[in-house]
């Protein structure tokens, strides 16, 4: 067959073009062979013209089509402009109608009555609405959730305006259960504070606050409550930054962390310990109070507070921590580590007081753990956990040191930016320096903005972590479901009241 087939090959790479010319009647015999080499057939359209002309014609056609397409596009846009509002209105109405109909299946019916069951916020006053809708022919029964229902109650947080913005943080972790404490008020206080210590530069705080407070489009990408939260945080940053951070890396009022970071470290750890104490002593105690769980309060949470105070008191004594940095003339009496914790060794009154707190707390905690445990295994493991919890406390307190480390990092990078700027600018002589000044300032500003971005992101996330892990871990359970009232979501339509 060789002489009846002419083959030539073009192109390169994995896929090549092969042209085979042969007599039509040989096709049946040849095809299988070609397929065996995994050759795909190219369907060539039958055009009774020369290739060049055909290509020209096709290109012309293509142009025409592209134009047609553009025309359609314009028409589409016109239509969208003219009808979009109408269509979205109708769509919305239809959606609302659909939701209503879908909901109807949830209600109980008889021929003459409808039974509607649902959750209502405690403060809501249903009577006037229902009376208006039914001409007074209705019966309502409202009751507080029963004990068995507590898990199922949807939650709506209720906080004053400034605090309400911080609900976002609580929501991200999970809403509280019906019988739990809402941690948002605590958050509203400590969150901006921690954020401020982490960012710790008054200039940065000012810029961040202005940015978040301004209504420019870029800022609007953030949710409203987050922006308000950040404004509060930024305001705190201005105050704290002026004290311990400085302005864009320049001299703070009180302590310069780059020269002497120890006071800030102390401050961070003190704040952390206070935070832990609040977690155990106030938040957890409040929860027990709501649940009327007195046993848990007395046997578990109060002893924990005692242990925290006693343990850290003794630790500070062992380290001989001094408060003179804060302008308070007070030093924890310095003791040997083993002696401080040894209940029998002689010691000053302060140490003895701390010892009493620690050991009484431990004692009650251990008895509590034994009393509340169910089963032998828990009876053994409970007390061990109480003692072991102390190591957890050390880790928690150490974790708060990040407040200081992040603050210093901000300060140092700000300082480094200024330093490099100054190093570039200083050797320049007057004519050149004037020209360079403006771009240099812009560059400095950009660098500071970048630092603000990175550092406030870090500050926010680390503050969040401190709350979620160190603070919420002490008392918070979460897992409540959000209260989403049944209502029509209207964006394009409005209800006219008569």
């Amino acid at each position: 067959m060789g002489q009846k087939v002419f083959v030539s090959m073009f192109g390169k790479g994995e896929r090549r073009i092969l042209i085979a010319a042969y007599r039509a009647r040989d096709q049946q015999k040849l095809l299988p062979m070609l397929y065996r080499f995994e050759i795909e057939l190219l369907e060539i359209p039958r055009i009774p013209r020369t290739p060049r002309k055909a290509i020209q014609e096709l290109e012309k056609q293509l142009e025409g089509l592209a134009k047609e397409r553009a025309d359609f596009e314009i028409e589409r846009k016109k239509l969208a402009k003219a009808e979009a509002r109408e269509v979205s209105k109708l769509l919305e109405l239809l959606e609302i109608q659909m939701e209503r109909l879908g909901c109807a299946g949830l209600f109980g019916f008889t021929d003459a009555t409808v039974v509607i069951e649902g959750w209502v916020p405690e403060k809501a006053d249903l009577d006037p609405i229902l009376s208006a809708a039914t001409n007074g022919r209705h019966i309502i029964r409202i009751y507080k959730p029963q004990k068995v229902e507590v898990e199922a109650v949807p939650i709506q947080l209720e906080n004053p305006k400034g605090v309400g913005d911080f609900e976002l943080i609580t929501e991200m972790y999970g809403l509280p259960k019906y019988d739990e404490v809402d941690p948002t008020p605590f958050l509203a206080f400590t969150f901006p504070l921690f954020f401020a210590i982490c960012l710790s530069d008054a200039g940065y705080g000012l810029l961040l606050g202005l940015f978040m407070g301004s209504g420019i489009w870029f800022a609007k990408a953030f949710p409203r409550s987050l922006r308000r939260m950040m404004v509060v945080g930024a305001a705190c940053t201005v105050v704290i930054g002026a004290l311990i951070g400085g302005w864009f890396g320049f001299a703070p009022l009180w302590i310069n962390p780059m020269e002497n970071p120890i006071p800030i470290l102390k401050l961070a750890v003190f704040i952390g310990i206070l935070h832990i104490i609040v977690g155990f002593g106030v938040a957890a105690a409040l929860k027990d109070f709501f649940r009327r769980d007195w046993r848990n309060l007395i046997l578990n949470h109060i002893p924990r507070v005692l242990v925290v105070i006693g343990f850290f008191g003794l630790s500070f004594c062992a380290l001989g921590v001094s408060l003179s940095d804060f302008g308070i003339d007070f030093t924890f009496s310095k003791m040997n580590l083993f002696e401080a914790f040894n209940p029998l060794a002689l010691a000053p009154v302060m140490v003895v007081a701390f010892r009493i707190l620690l050991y009484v707390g431990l004692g009650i905690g251990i008895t509590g753990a034994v009393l509340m445990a169910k089963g032998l295994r828990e009876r053994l493991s409970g007390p061990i956990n109480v003692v072991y919890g102390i190591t957890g406390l050390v880790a928690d307190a150490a974790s708060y040191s990040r407040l200081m480390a992040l603050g210093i990092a901000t300060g140092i990078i700000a300082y480094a930016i200024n330093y490099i700027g100054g190093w570039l600018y200083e050797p320049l002589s007057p004519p050149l320096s004037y020209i360079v000044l403006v771009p240099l300032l812009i560059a400095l500003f950009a660098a500071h903005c970048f630092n603000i971005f990175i550092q406030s992101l870090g500050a926010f996330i680390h503050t969040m972590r401190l709350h979620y892990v160190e603070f919420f871990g002490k008392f918070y359970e979460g897992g409540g479901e959000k209260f989403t009232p049944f209502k029509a979501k209207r964006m394009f339509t409005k209800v006219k009241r008569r």
Partner: protein
Amino acid sequence: MVLAAGLAIAIPGIISGMGVGIAGVAAAAVASEDPKKAYKAFVFEVLPGTQGIYGFVAGFLIIIGAGLSAGAEVTVPVGLAVLAAAVPAILQGFTAYPQGLVASASITAFAKRPEVFAPGLMYTVMVELYAILGLLATILMLTFIGAL
């Protein structure tokens, strides 16, 4: 001493680069499938970068603190002490890699279920504590040596 500063800046920088790179790859993959999630994935991507910054902070502290920039003479014992003090800051950089892994895992999980954004963030930040402690240790040691 120059060595300490250099290492403290360079090593965490490299590893941070790797961490950010890993998270970035995952973020890009998710963004290509679901552009709406791109910006939130970006938050994850930035996180492993902080180790590099901490390294830079430590390095800069050494440069400034020791007056290296002013061309002061440095004795060998002080230099060695500073180098030793820089070790935590150098090695903390390696936490950027696992953090990158956690970040990209979190991005992956986030792509599947948008509601795990906050927990994913927490998992990622958990790793960072150890980097911070490393930086902290270096700063404290530098303070106590008197090189600050």
